[in-house]
C-alpha cells in the first residue's frame, strides 16, 4: 500500500517550500540511506521540484516517522512544516501520484515538465536501490500521465504571454514560420522570453534595442542577430512578425511606418505584438488592412481562454487516471492472490503425497498398475475439489474486499503467511 507525505504550492509558501526542499543529490542520498537503515522498508521515492517536495513510501513506514527523518535531513524540526503537509494513504496516495504525474496538481494546469521530474525522481530512487516495492505503481503513473497528455488537450494551448505570442505567430504562418522574418524590439525580460519562444519555433529573429550591447547579448547564444536602432523603420517594413517590448514611454512604431508598406505585402498577414506598457505600437496600426495587432490585454484574453479550455479537460483526464488506477489495483490484486493459490495447492498436494506414502506402507502388495490408478484417482479428486475455490480466489483480485478474504483463507487453511506474501518487483 502506498503512502505519500508532502508539501506543495497550494499549502506552503515559497519560503517554506525552499526550507524543506530535497533538491541536492547528497541530501536525497542521505535520506534514502536513513530510510533504508532505520526501517528496512520496501520502497521510497523522493520528489522535489520548485512547487513540491513529496516522499512516497509503502505504508509500512508511518508518516510521522517519515516526517522526522525528512526534518532531520533538511535540518529543521518537523513541527515547522507538518501543519502545511498532507498525507495520503492507499488509493488516495495512488490517485495523488497519478494527478501529480499528469499535471493536474501542478501550478500550471496540465504542464508536462512534472512528468519528466517524477521520472527523474524515480530513477534517482532506483540508483539508491530504494524503489523496489514501488515499481508497478510508478510505471502505472507514467502510463496514466502519457495517456492523459495524448488523449486529451490538457497540455495544449499557451498559458503565458510569451508562449501565447509564439502560438499566435504559428497560427498565422504555420510551417512557414521558420521562413518568415521576425523582429523583436527591446531586450528586456519580456522581449527575451518572446525571443526564445520564437527562436525555439525555428524563426530567424532580429533583435533591435536602443542599447545595442543588450541586443547582442540576447542573441549571443544563437538563433538570431542584432541590428542597429537606426534601421528600425526599415526592419519593421520588411518583417512578417513584429514584437515590441521596450520601456519607452512613447510609441516606437508609428502608423506612418506601416501604412505604406502594407499594400506591398500582397495579402500576406502582418502580425504586430505590443507587449509593452505604455504601448510601443500605435493603436492605429491595427486598423491598417492586412495587419493583426495584439497588445497585452489581447494576449491575456487568449491565455484566459486557453486556461478555461484546459480546465474543461480535467474531467476527461480524471476518467483516464481512474481507469489506470483500476487497472493497477487489479494487477496488484492478481499479484496478491498468486502466492495464496500456490500455497494452497502445495499444501493439498503435500497432504495427498503423505497419505499415499502411508497407504503404500499399509498395502505393500499393490501392483504398479494399481498404485498408478490410486494416484490418478486422488489427483483427480484434488483437482476437482480445488477447482471452484481457485476460480473464486482469482476473482478476489478485482474485488475491494479481496485482501480480507485472502487473510481469512490463510487463517482457515493455516497457510504460511510469509510464503503467501507477494514478492516485490
Amino acid at each position, binding site marked *: 500500500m502506498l503512502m505519500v507525505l508532502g508539501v506543495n504550492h497550494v499549502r506552503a509558501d515559497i519560503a517554506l517550500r525552499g526550507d524543506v526542499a530535497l533538491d541536492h543529490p547528497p541530501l536525497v542520498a542521505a535520506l534514502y540511506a536513513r530510510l533504508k537503515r532505520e526501517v528496512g522498508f520496501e520502497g521510497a521515492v523522493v520528489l522535489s521540484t520548485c512547487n513540491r517536495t513529496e516522499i512516497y513510501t509503502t505504508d509500512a513506514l508511518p508518516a510521522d516517522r517519515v516526517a522526522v527523518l525528512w526534518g532531520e535531513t533538511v535540518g529543521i524540526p518537523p513541527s515547522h512544516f507538518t501543519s502545511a503537509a498532507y498525507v495520503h494513504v492507499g488509493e488516495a496516495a495512488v490517485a495523488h501520484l497519478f494527478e501529480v504525474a499528469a499535471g493536474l496538481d501542478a501550478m500550471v494546469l496540465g504542464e508536462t515538465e512534472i512528468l519528466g521530474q517524477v521520472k527523474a525522481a524515480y530513477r534517482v530512487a532506483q540508483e539508491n536501490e530504494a524503489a523496489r516495492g514501488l515499481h508497478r505503481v510508478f510505471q502505472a503513473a507514467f502510463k496514466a500521465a502519457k495517456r492523459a497528455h495524448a488523449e486529451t488537450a490538457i497540455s495544449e494551448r499557451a498559458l503565458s504571454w510569451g508562449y501565447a505570442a509564439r502560438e499566435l505567430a504559428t*497560427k498565422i*504562418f*504555420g510551417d512557414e514560420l521558420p521562413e518568415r522574418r521576425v523582429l523583436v524590439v527591446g531586450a528586456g525580460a519580456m522581449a527575451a522570453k518572446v525571443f526564445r519562444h520564437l527562436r525555439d519555433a525555428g524563426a530567424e529573429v532580429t533583435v533591435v534595442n536602443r542599447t545595442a550591447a543588450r541586443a547582442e547579448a540576447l542573441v549571443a547564444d544563437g538563433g538570431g542577430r542584432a541590428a542597429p536602432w537606426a534601421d528600425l523603420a526599415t526592419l519593421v517594413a520588411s518583417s512578417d512578425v513584429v514584437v515590441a517590448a521596450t520601456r519607452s514611454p512613447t510609441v516606437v512604431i508609428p502608423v506612418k511606418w506601416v501604412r505604406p508598406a502594407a499594400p506591398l505585402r*500582397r*495579402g*500576406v*498577414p502582418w502580425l504586430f505584438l505590443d507587449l509593452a506598457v505604455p504601448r510601443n505600437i500605435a493603436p492605429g496600426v491595427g486598423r491598417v488592412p*492586412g495587419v*493583426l495587432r495584439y497588445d497585452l490585454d489581447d494576449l491575456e484574453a487568449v491565455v484566459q*481562454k486557453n486556461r478555461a479550455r484546459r480546465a474543461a479537460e480535467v474531467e476527461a483526464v480524471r476518467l483516464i487516471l481512474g481507469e489506470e488506477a483500476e487497472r493497477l489495483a487489479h494487477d496488484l490484486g492478481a499479484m496478491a492472490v498468486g502466492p495464496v493459490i500456490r500455497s494452497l495447492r502445495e499444501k493439498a498436494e503435500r497432504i495427498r503425497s503423505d497419505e499415499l506414502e502411508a497407504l503404500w506402507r499399509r498395502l505393500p502388495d499393490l501392483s504398479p498398475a494399481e498404485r498408478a490408478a490410486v494416484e490418478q484417482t486422488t489427483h483427480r479428486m484434488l483437482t476437482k475439489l480445488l477447482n471452484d475455490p481457485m476460480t473464486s480466489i482469482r476473482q478476489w483480485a478485482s474485488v475491494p474486499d479481496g485482501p480480507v478474504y485472502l487473510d481469512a483463507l490463510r487463517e482457515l487453511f493455516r497457510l504460511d503467511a510469509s510464503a503467501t506474501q507477494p514478492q516485490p518487483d
Partner: protein
Amino acid sequence: MAATGAVLVASSVGFVWGFYQPRHERWAAVGLGVVWVLATVWLGRTLGLSQPSLTAPAVVGTLAVWMAAAGFPWWSRRPGWAPLAGFAVPVLTLWWAASQVVAPGLRAAAGRASLWEWAHLALLAAAMTSLLLGAAAAGMYLEHERELRQKAPRVFYYRLPPLGDLDRWSYRLTVWGWVSLSGCMVTGGLLTAPAGVYWVETTGAVGMLAVWLAYLIYVVLRARGWRGHGSSWVAVAAFVALAVDVVGGGGVSHGVAAAWWQGWYG
C-alpha cells in the same frame, strides 16, 4: 438516390455539429463512407448500362460526391483539417441535390456513352470537387482570420489549421480544379469536333468560359505573389459563380458536349 441524399444531409449536419463536438465527426465520417458506397453502386450501374435515365448533371454531381468521399480519409487526417468537411460537405450536398433535379429532359442516348465521354464528365467532376474544396479552404481562411481579428478565440481559433496552410492549400486545390476544368472544356470540344462544332453560344457555355477566365486571372495573380484575404474571397466568389452557372445557367446541361449528347448535332 433518396438514401444517398438522406445520408448526405445527415453527414452534413454531423460535420457542422462536429465543429463544436469533435467526437461526433466520427459518425458523420461513417455516413460519408456509406455515401461513397451508394455512389459507387449507382455509378457502376450507370457505367454498365448507359441507362436511358442517365443525365449528365446527375453523373457529374454523383462523381463529385464520390471523389470527395474517397479523398476524405486522406485529407481529414491531416492535422487541423478535419473541419474542412464541415465547410465542404453541406455545399456538396446542396450541389448534389441540385444536380439530381436540373435539366430533367437531358438524356444520354443508349449506347452513346464512350470512355472518352466519361473522361469528359470525370474531369468536370474533378474540377468541381477540387474547386469546391479550394473554396472551402478559402472560407476556412476567412473565418479563422475573422476570429484572429476579433481577438476573441472561439471554436475556429482552436480547430483550424494556420492561415498560411489554409492559404497554400486553397491555392493548390484551386489550381488543380482549374487544370481539370480546362481539360474538361478541351475534351468537350474534342467530342463535338467530328460534327464540326466547337462552340455553342448558350448562357451556360459562355458563363463557364467566364468562370474559367476568372480562375485564370486568379492563378496568374497568385503566381505573382498575391495571397491571403483578397485571394480567399476571389476563390469563394469564383466557386459561387461556377455553382450558379452549373446549376442555374446550365453550364453542364447546355455545354458543347451536352448539346451533342442530346443529339443536337450529328
